[in-house]
């Protein structure tokens, strides 16, 4: 036996080492426990070096440029960026609150609630796993970071903390194939599951083909994954099509716009409301609203306005007038002559026909729908937003889609 082992010593060592690692793998899979000691050692060895490199890079890169562009500008820019990020988040929150039906209640809710508590973190290096998107940030358990916390930017979600070490944390990015988060669409409130694809885009699964999702529709975190607070923007649907296993929706995550350098780790999440339907851009060409119809002595307009209410109400009042003109009491005797001309202007059939509801046209790119009893503009706002005064530019005719986070439904808009 001994001679056998000596003869195949290399092979024996190989088998022993591989078998030991296989056992280690099996133990990790079976117990779902981690070899934390080794990870802590590795991370604690590597992250100080990368942090130092990052520090050097930040403080040396473009030094000459900084010199000529005045010292302190970079610092001020960083501070302003941070401030802008905070303001963006506040803006998200405010927009979400203001878009609810009761503005006063929203303001009260806003006062009562405080936005999610976050800490800023800097990405210092990426993970080593192949086909995955992971980064390390320079905040760890000593700063209050815990495994499972959400990582966001003011523009949207970024990922979640999957490992927390004393001075660093490993963040699984939303583009990683193993990433998943619950999302909900803004307009149709369709719930789905965000999944990474291993590259820049993500897809949303678990949505049936029968459910309605529009291209350009925004998705927000639903909060049901218990990781991301409800109401954080996720991205805009770039492609929507029916597939074999449900709808195929591809989005470009909004949190990655402008590159990732600094992120926010949500220490204490606060669920927010999903903003209402996006308001079209104020650059849309919209004519001024028509003046209210003048009640006239005759003509269909009189019936439409005087009758009021529904089409049935208007028909009823028209027939009542015909009956009154012929001295007919409904429910007694033969039917009156509905074709007879009535002084006092009964509505002609054409007018009655015109009072029938028109078929609603599909919503436009901005989600606006054509409403009855209103001019059929090329772009028409949703209910609630129609009462708001809009900027009018008679020369333009096309609408531009906008990011809902910036122009959220219900918010008062600029008037010129």
């Amino acid at each position, binding site marked *: 036996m001994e001679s056998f082992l000596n003869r195949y010593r290399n092979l024996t060592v*190989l088998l022993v080492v*591989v078998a030991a690692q296989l056992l280690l793998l099996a133990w990790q*899979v079976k117990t779902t426990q981690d070899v934390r000691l080794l990870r802590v050692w590795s991370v604690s060895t*590597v992250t100080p070096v990368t942090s130092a*490199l990052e520090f050097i890079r930040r403080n040396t890169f473009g030094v000459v440029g900084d010199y000529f562009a005045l010292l302190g500008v970079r610092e001020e820019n960083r501070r302003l960026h941070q401030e802008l990020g905070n303001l963006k988040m506040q803006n998200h929150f405010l927009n979400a609150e203001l878009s609810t039906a009761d503005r006063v209640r929203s303001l009260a809710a806003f006062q009562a609630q405080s936005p999610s508590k976050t800490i800023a973190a800097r990405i210092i*290096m*990426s993970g080593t796993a192949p*086909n*995955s998107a992971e980064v390390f940030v320079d905040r760890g358990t000593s700063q209050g970071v815990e495994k499972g916390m959400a990582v966001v930017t003011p523009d949207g979600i970024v990922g979640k903390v999957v490992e927390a070490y004393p001075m660093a944390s490993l963040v699984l990015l939303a583009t990683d194939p193993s990433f998943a988060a619950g999302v909900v669409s803004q307009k149709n409130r369709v719930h789905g599951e965000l999944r990474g694809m291993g590259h820049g885009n993500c897809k949303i699964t678990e949505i049936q083909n029968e459910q309605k999702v529009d291209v350009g529709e925004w998705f927000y975190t639903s909060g049901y994954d218990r990781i991301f607070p409800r109401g954080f923007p996720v991205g805009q649907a770039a492609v929507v099509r029916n597939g074999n296993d449900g709808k195929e929706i591809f989005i470009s995550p909004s949190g990655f716009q402008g590159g990732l350098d600094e992120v926010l780790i949500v220490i204490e999440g606060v669920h927010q409301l999903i903003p209402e339907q996006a308001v079209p851009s104020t650059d849309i060409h919209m004519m001024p609203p028509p003046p209210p119809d003048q009640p006239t002595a005759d003509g269909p307009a009189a019936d439409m306005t005087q009758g009021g209410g529904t089409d049935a109400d208007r028909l009823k009042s028209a027939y009542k007038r015909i009956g009154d003109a012929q001295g007919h009491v409904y429910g007694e005797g033969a039917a009156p002559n509905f074709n007879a001309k009535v002084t006092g202007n009964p509505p002609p059939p054409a007018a009655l026909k015109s009072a029938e509801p028109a078929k609603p046209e599909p919503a436009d790119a901005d989600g606006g729908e054509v409403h009855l009893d209103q001019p059929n503009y090329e772009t028409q706002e949703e209910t609630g937003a129609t009462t708001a005064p809009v900027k009018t530019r008679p020369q333009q005719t096309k609408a531009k889609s906008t990011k809902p986070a910036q122009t959220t439904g219900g918010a008062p808009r600029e008037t010129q």
Partner: protein
Amino acid sequence: MSEFGERLLADTRKKKTPGDYVRSFAFVLVPFLAILFQVYVPRFFGFLGYLELPLLVTIYFALTRRQPIAGVFFGAAVGMVQDSLSQQLIGMYGIVKTLVGYFAASVSMRFDVENPVLIGILSFFFYFFHQFFYWVLDRALLGHMTVFDPQQTFVYGLLNAAVALPLFHLLDKLRVKA
């Protein structure tokens, strides 16, 4: 056997007991720098993400040491450190690099690993083997439905082999004649 093959074997026999060795600090520093490169540099130069420097370093040390047992432990150590710097279970990279270290060291006992052509071929082969075997383990042991793209791996293998030549030449500077 071809003339080229005979020459390779002859050279190997001549260098069967290499008198040169790599400075001991390089055994720690070089893998550390390789891992550091892998986790830091692609953040700014994304196109360098294909480089698997820890693997190339493993191949290099296994080839130069010509001791399979050393190759086994070196590969296992580098692989496990790589594993620990990601979310994945510890041992995945460890097993793959253990095998790479063993096979590279075994190959070096038979062939003249000073030959640049052979270095390129071995680097390409071990890169492909590394990626393929990792994919096999990922599917077989962990049940992950990851995708293996042979064409992409082929191209990345060629690129890594191209990088291996100057890298090995650079690392040769660390060797000291006994």
